[in-house]
């Protein structure tokens, strides 16, 4: 415990799109960084003042679909 969320419970398209979004806008700053997808989603949800769940919920998807600037949100 806590039981790890099983990403495979999302469809593969969602999974791919969330990874692409996080890699682009919330990049892992060092290759050696290892963060679970859930942690990375939580970081994004905190930045956008969303409910922090670590899951790809509707409001998180809505933010991901909004037109935006291409500069990452983590200033590296």
């Amino acid at each position, binding site marked *: 415990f806590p039981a790890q969320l099983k990403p495979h419970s999302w469809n593969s398209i969602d999974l791919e799109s969330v990874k692409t979004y996080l890699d682009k806008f919330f990049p892992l700053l060092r290759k050696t960084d290892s963060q679970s997808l859930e942690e990375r989603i939580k970081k994004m949800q905190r*930045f956008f*003042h969303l409910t922090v769940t670590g899951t790809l919920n509707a409001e998180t998807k809505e*933010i991901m679909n*909004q*037109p935006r*600037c*291409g*500069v990452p*949100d983590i200033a590296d």
Partner: protein
Amino acid sequence: YKTFPGNPRWRNKYLTYRIDNYTPDLPQAKVDEAISKAFMVWSDVTPLQFKRVFRGDADIVVAFARREHRDGYPFDGRGNTLAHAFAPGKGLGGDAHFDEDETWSEYNHGVNLFLVAAHEFGHSLGLAHSNVPGALMYPTYSYVNPKTFRLSEDDKRGIQKLYGRKSA
């Protein structure tokens, strides 16, 4: 507000910009006006002054491009990423690129060039994204009437942290 790591900023208060090319979506004069007004958002609250140059070197180069455009950060077609810019520095530093696959507009049909340019020039001057909703440096695009646009206090604090206030 946030600045980039190491707080890169321009040492010179007199900055030059060059408009490299134009979008067919708007008359050139409208592009010139939107870009000039976008710079004024920042010069109105700091000692910075911007001068347009028509050839040769410029601190900030403004360009419209689509997909891969030789900076390693390809655009992605219509929607999603609208534009990007580089933090102050040599070469690409300060440059702002706008995705030509968007429909650029003077008002609310399509993407408002003034609003996106003002945001990107914030990056050109050293501001990173802010997570304050409603701030100009918030990462996602939302339309506001350019005629009633006001820079948020968060953005003002950020840019004045880098360049100081405009002298009275």
